[in-house]
């Protein structure tokens, strides 16, 4: 009863005002159920109301904006400023503005290009491997089997452990602290790899493997959550149409998982691009293959060159923004509304 009254009321008001046939048409249109709530204001002052709503939205957003400015805007702004100066604890007096000098020097520095190259290799190799392994684990864990809980624990444990403990565990498996049967084997492996690719190659490879080992378990859990969120009928439906698992995987599983895959790639790439902790912890600073992160850390903390170090770490920003934009498109593709 109440619904009927609500729908009828606007019609009566309109004809009472004598707005004519055009209004009557609009009444029919406005009767669409979703619009009931908005009806009263819609014909009179749509714009002023909308403006008030927008203003109120900003008031509600203010605390978040403030927080973002304090914890994100200020540090980034400070870093940008530092990158344009010769700020250094080694220098007496205040920092001088040097313009783009720090950046110009970087671009001319072979060490920078080497670090950038190593960073890209590190990020891409680990991300591809983590994604492939993680997806494999997720698909394995998605179907029930005996002992699934144990396998789940085994896969998730490297991620659930604190980074420090994981690092020590990894370090000891690469380089056993007590004499073990496979210690000589690991030794040969190290000298073999270093012999072919140069000193420090094994250390770098072990960092990559560590990142994959730990990261793939995280990606696996992320993708498993994604798989579980997909209604099983969608897979059943594919089963009715094709006998070939590989085809179903590419045509159904991958597209359905896309938002989760994009999130996984994003987290993996950004953490690898900005990685300092893994490399530093595993190699204790004896770094032959520096990445941007370790290179910047050397410059700033060991070398006291705050300006160039800031410039160096800011070179990552365009990369990260680019990755973010591409992936954001994948998360949330723009809607093509049909009329």
């Amino acid at each position, binding site marked *: 009863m109440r619904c009927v009254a609500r729908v009828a009321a606007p019609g009566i008001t309109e004809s009472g005002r004598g707005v004519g046939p055009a209004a009557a048409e609009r009444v029919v249109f406005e009767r669409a159920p979703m619009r009931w709530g908005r009806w009263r204001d819609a014909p009179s002052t749509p714009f002023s109301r909308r403006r008030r709503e927008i203003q109120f939205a900003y008031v509600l957003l203010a605390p978040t904006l403030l927080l973002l400015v304090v914890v994100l805007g200020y540090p980034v702004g400070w870093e940008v400023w530092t990158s344009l100066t010769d700020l250094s604890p080694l220098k007496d007096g205040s920092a001088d503005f040097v313009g783009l000098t720090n950046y110009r020097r970087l671009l001319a520095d072979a060490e920078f290009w080497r670090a950038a190259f190593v960073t890209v290799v590190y990020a891409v190799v680990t991300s591809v491997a983590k994604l492939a392994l993680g997806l494999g684990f997720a698909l394995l864990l998605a179907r029930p089997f005996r002992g699934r809980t144990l396998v789940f624990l085994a896969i998730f444990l490297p991620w659930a452990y604190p980074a420090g403990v994981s690092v020590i565990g990894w370090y000891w498996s690469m380089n056993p602290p007590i004499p073990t049967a496979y210690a000589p084997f690991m030794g040969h492996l190290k000298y073999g790899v270093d012999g072919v690719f140069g000193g420090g190659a094994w250390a770098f490879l072990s960092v990559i493997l560590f990142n994959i080992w730990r990261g793939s378990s995280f990606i696996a859990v992320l993708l498993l959550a994604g798989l579980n969120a997909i209604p099983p*009928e969608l897979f*059943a439906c594919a089963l*009715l*149409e094709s*006998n070939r698992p590989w085809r179903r995987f590419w*045509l159904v599983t991958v597209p*359905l998982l*896309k938002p989760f895959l994009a999130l996984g790639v994003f987290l993996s790439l950004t953490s690898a691009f900005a990685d300092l902790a893994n490399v530093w912890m595993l190699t204790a600073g004896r770094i032959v293959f520096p990445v941007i992160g370790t290179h910047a850390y050397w410059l700033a903390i060991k070398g006291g060159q705050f300006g160039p170090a800031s410039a160096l770490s800011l070179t990552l920003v365009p990369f990260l923004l680019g990755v973010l934009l591409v992936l954001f498109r994948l998360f949330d593709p723009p809607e093509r509304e*049909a009329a």
Partner: protein
Amino acid sequence: MAQVLMKDLNKKYDEVHAVKDVNLHIRDKEFVVLVGPSGCGKSTTLRMVAGLEEITAGEISIGDRVVNDLPPKDRDIAMVFQNYALYPHMTVYDNMAFGLKMRKFPKLEIQKRVQDAAEILGIQELLKRKPRQLSGGQRQRVAVGRAIVRHPQVFLFDEPLSNLDAKLRVQMRVELKRLHDRLETTAIYVTHDQVEAMTLGDRVVVMKDGWVQQVGEPLELYGHPANRFVAGFIGSPAMNFIEVGIKDGGALWADTAGFRVKIPSDRTDRLKSYVGQPVTIGIRPEDLHPATGGDAPDSTFDAVVEVVEPLGSEILLDVKVGANSMVARVDPTVRVKVHEPIRLALNAERLHFFDKKSEVAI
């Protein structure tokens, strides 16, 4: 077009015996509905026909082929799911064409079939949209369209209307029936809704706890339920059940506190052996009416009105008879008040009797 044959079909999970010795012969072009409360094994049976569940024991054939070991794709069936199961990343057209593309149909043929199906279902305008831009009813149409384009031997429907609101459900029910008349494809339809089962099915299979309770045409199930479960499950409002003793006093009488009714002579043969024993008596709500002078006194009894539900086309009276409750479906012209006594008469020819222990119809 094909018949579907299930022979001693069984499904066992680790601890649950979900489907027990199901034997069904679904004829070519027939629309058969599996109905029952949740957990009765109806969906599992359907999924075994589809090949989505392995068959523990027994045999299923579609057409002349035993399909036990055939993968789902090669069974030549098409299935419609309760949640539509449309791919969110594909347009309506691609969703409908999916099965044909997977089977490598030529592009023109796919186009023609999708257009035809879209026309039948009235969704030509929606072909370029994504599923999330559609309403529930439209999505369900697309899901049905995806099944139609395949021209399968058998349609399998797994509660396809359960996610729709009541009004749309009634409308789609009619459309599905019309569609079946037009396409004449054998269909197996699973639902928990007995009204859907009765309105759609050429024949209805009532299941409970993995067992088939009864197979029959809708009115046959309604008029001659094989047991108390079917009697109570089919029909709304449900059949009234009261426990009575059978007494021999020249004729046979059904007798309990506040209720004493003469049993028609044509039923006495079967009930004779129950004299002195309790049986369950079943009365459909529409077989009760306020007593008038024309009613035989030995088929009337006193009741007290507890609740009045005026539905417009009829009135439902919840009444108390002795210690028993009953629902009577009476004419909308009947005027009664709550807590008032009323004398009811029953249509003794249409009484149902069930063995109290086995619950089988007598």
